[in-house]
């Protein structure tokens, strides 16, 4: 009964690479004996969705409709909340709110920052 979205369901190389790694929280948390059911970034993701809705950049209903379509197709095998993150980013890329090149570049910057001693 969800509303059909206009999101492009084509696979996106950057997100496919992340998906294929299979580093979802429910896989890695038990490996380290962590019992928290959610990854540390989940609340931030929820807040980001609220912010995008408040600003009108990505209305909540349109985001959720796109998420419904993406999580039963492109990201059907990914568990939540990773599937929600991938769906959000996929939708933002699809709408041109960010570009894949900028995102890939920023991910490299963020990783080197997080891994700095």
């Amino acid at each position: 009964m969800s509303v059909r979205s206009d999101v492009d369901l084509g696979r996106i190389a950057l997100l496919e690479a992340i998906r294929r790694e299979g580093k979802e929280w429910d896989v890695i948390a038990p490996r380290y004996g962590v019992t928290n059911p959610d990854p540390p970034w989940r609340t931030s993701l929820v807040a980001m969705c609220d912010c995008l809705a408040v600003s009108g950049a990505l209305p909540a209903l349109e985001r959720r409709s796109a998420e419904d379509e993406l999580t039963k197709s492109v990201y059907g095998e990914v568990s939540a909340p990773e599937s929600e993150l991938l769906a959000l980013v996929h939708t933002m890329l699809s709408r041109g709110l960010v570009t894949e090149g900028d995102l890939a570049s920023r991910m490299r910057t963020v990783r080197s920052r997080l891994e700095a001693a």
Partner: protein
Amino acid sequence: MADKHSHAGDDHDHKAAPMVEEITDYEVLEIAVRELAIEHGLFTTEDHRKFTEWAESIGPAAGSRLVAKAWTDPAFKARLLKDGTEACKEVGVDWAEPTGVGTPSDYTNFRILEDTPTLHHVIVCTLCSCYPRPLLGMSPEWYRSTNYRRRLVRWPREVLAEFGLILPPEVEIRIEDSNQKCRFMVLPVRPQGTEKWTEQQLAAIVTRDCMIGVALPRPGRTADVHPVHEARRPVHSASEHGKAAE
């Protein structure tokens, strides 16, 4: 990892909670897209901080307190049924938070659905995942699933049975479909055997699932544990079949 350190005037050993000791691309992706969104002016750092703090602060405890108070205070219950949004302030929940006009999906007309011995309510959002977040916190994953959203309205008894809730046929089941303008929460029937309980005791048995309507409160039940149904005809992956054939 064992950790020994001293606080002011205190020297003791304790174990730190385990942490995931790797940085996944999911974590990196969330930070990267957020930074770009802020740089592109889609929202501000301040907005994000405000919504993050709010999201960290909400949870089902507020809803539990609300139900316990309604069970023990008839005047409060009357106010709650008359104007749910306003009555929530009495348990410290203001639907206008965190912006003054709520969140885009939470500032709504909030209504309490009162169960009776012959009427049971369940909430759903068939369109997306509307949920009374200020009272119940983040929605559980199953609530967001298309499986729950589609099947509950068609086969309510069967879906409730999957949660371990089997209602007798004389109990009418009413499904309330949430939407962007109206949110619902179930006020379950106070269970027998709790007549002399305090509000605090009562709140402990009002779990999130009871307020969604997929469980009933009862003495001794203080957590939502869903039964695991073993598949009658399990489906194995192709690789498992291959191994079995070897």
